């Protein structure tokens, strides 16, 4: 396994923002990390790249084993040699992800000069090659341009180029398409899927968009308020979601032949993590299947038959009535 995260918990101050996250991704695999805003997706990305401490967060438990080494507690200097070299990072907003005062070429060159030790000239040739492979027209000209000369889609390709420049094993993409036009979104998503196959690298795709997950992910891990709700192979999850939240998320994707007005949302919102009691299912206030047990006892994640996880007292495929009765007894 390329990256194996086990029981990762993290807090800022006294607030535990991630609570026992477990997931894994292998080479040639795309893992979708899904959840609404506030579910802890971006924080997870920062925790994996060792940048969470910059936000004042501390990892309190768990392990992040990358290619055999546990990254939790790794020295900053050692972590820095991994970042950019073996773990590429793609940020949410390409508009603000580039240094406005530095040319595109210099920003991409920086990675290969730093991690591959290339000379100025070799780095530039490398950069131009990557940019062209990402279908940026006239890559030599673009390399000499500044970020403000480029469109959002082009900037995101540049950010992807930076992530790829040192030929990493793992790429973490935090909502790589959110800030882009819909037409460009599809291009970028397909480009990422293509890279995974061609270069045999692992990709963690953080998104709130279930349709993107359906398009390119092999596995999916659904987060809710800092905990894993359900995870497993994409095909399985989409065919038969077992957590009511997963089911609701899938219900939010518009489909062909849907009657107008039949698209469902999920009532309510994710509350701040600090608002939840210690022992409860955090989705309970918004869940149609919740009962007294959900409000007083945290459903612990159990390994499912497909190798995924599920944390729910009353999965979608269990009869509601029976569960409630069992509770009463």
């Amino acid at each position, binding site marked *: 396994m390329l990256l194996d995260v086990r029981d990762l918990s993290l807090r800022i101050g006294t607030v535990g923002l991630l609570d026992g996250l477990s997931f894994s991704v292998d080479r040639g695999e795309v893992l979708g990390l899904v959840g609404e805003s506030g579910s802890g997706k971006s924080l997870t990305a920062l925790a994996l*790249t060792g*940048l969470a401490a*910059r936000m004042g967060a501390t990892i309190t438990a768990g392990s992040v084993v990358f290619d055999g080494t546990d990254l939790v507690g790794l020295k900053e200097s050692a972590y*820095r*040699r*991994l*970042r*950019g*070299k073996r773990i590429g*990072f793609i*940020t*949410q*907003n390409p508009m*603000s*992800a*580039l*240094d*406005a*005062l*530095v040319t595109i070429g210099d920003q991409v060159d*920086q*990675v290969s000069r*730093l*991690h591959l030790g290339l000379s100025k000239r070799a780095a530039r040739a490398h950069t131009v090659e990557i940019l062209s492979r990402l279908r940026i027209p006239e890559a030599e000209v673009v390399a000499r341009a*500044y970020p*403000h*000369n480029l469109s959002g889609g082009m900037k995101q390709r540049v*950010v992807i180029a*930076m992530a790829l420049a040192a030929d990493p094993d793992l790429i973490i993409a935090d909502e790589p398409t959110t800030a882009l036009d819909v037409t460009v979104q599809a291009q970028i998503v397909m480009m990422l899927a293509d890279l995974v196959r061609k270069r045999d690298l692992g990709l963690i795709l953080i998104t709130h968009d279930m349709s993107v997950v359906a398009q390119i992910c092999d596995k999916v891990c659904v987060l809710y308020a800092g905990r894993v709700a359900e995870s497993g192979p994409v095909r399985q999850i989409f065919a038969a979601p077992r957590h009511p939240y997963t089911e609701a998320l899938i219900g939010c994707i518009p489909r062909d032949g849907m009657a107008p007005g039949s698209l469902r949302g999920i009532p309510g919102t994710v509350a701040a993590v600090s608002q939840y009691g210690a022992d409860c299912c955090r989705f309970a206030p918004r869940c149609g299947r919740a009962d007294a047990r959900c409000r007083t006892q945290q459903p612990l994640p159990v390994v499912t038959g497909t190798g995924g996880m599920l944390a729910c007292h009353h999965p979608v495929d269990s009869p509601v009535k029976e569960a409630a009765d069992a509770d009463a007894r």
Partner: protein
Amino acid sequence: MLGYVIRRILMLVPVFFAVSVVIFSMIHMLPGDPIENLLRVGSSPAQREALTAKYGLDRPLVEQYLLWMGNVLTGDLGTAIVQRRPVAQLVAQALPYSLTLGGLALCFSTVLGVVVGTIAASWRGSWLDQGLMGGVLFGSMLPNFWIGLLMILVFSVSLGWTPVSGARGWESLVLPVLTIGLGGTALVARVTRIAMIDTQGKDFVLLLHAKGVHPLTIQVRHVLRHALIPVVTILALRIGWILGGAVTVEVVFARPGLGSLLIKSLNQHDYPVVQASLLILAMAVMLGTLMGDLLQAAMDPRFRDSLT
């Protein structure tokens, strides 16, 4: 870009004339005139009138202004009425002292201010940050002449390291440069610190960390580069001030300079000298602003592209 520079220089022309009108009328509105300084006690009104006529001060103000401006445009700054020497010569004597002192003080406060601001921003909130910023703030609150006197007392009188006053040799520059420079340091340090802290929170800095770039490289090559843009703008505005505003320091250290020349001439109502000095200071402010904008264009590609 060249078009922009030419446009900016052309824009200076009307500003130049407007400033000259303001300077001229303000001086002539002041009570008193230079003739009083030329007359001996007990001179007759006839002598006074003769002198007034000699310097053309009896003519209408508009005529006097046009005459003066005409001469200035042909490169003739006139002759000092009280000091009785060509104005150009007086200014040429004072200007090098002001340029050296002002230039060195500007360099000093820029370098020290940027270094202090960078360190403070990099260790934001630590005792180092609070100590440094508290120190420069305290330094900038003390009046110039008082710091000057204090330094003379310590370094010249007690330690004997530097001359007490005068303008001979580089040693005599040390204390005046420090005195003026310390005031500017606080400003530069504060602007640098705030701009760096602001930049540190930007997305691109997070991505630089994710690229594995060393934090020191990020601070100096990326964050500081952004922070220097507002610093340059502020320094450009100070160029005029630093040339003419050193009067108190010039007095304390008994140094010649444009500031002292201006004050002396103002006291004597020596119109031609006052007009010429103020005009030069105004030009310095205008050129300083222009230089600041050009530097900003050189540093910021976004600004550069917005000019065309």
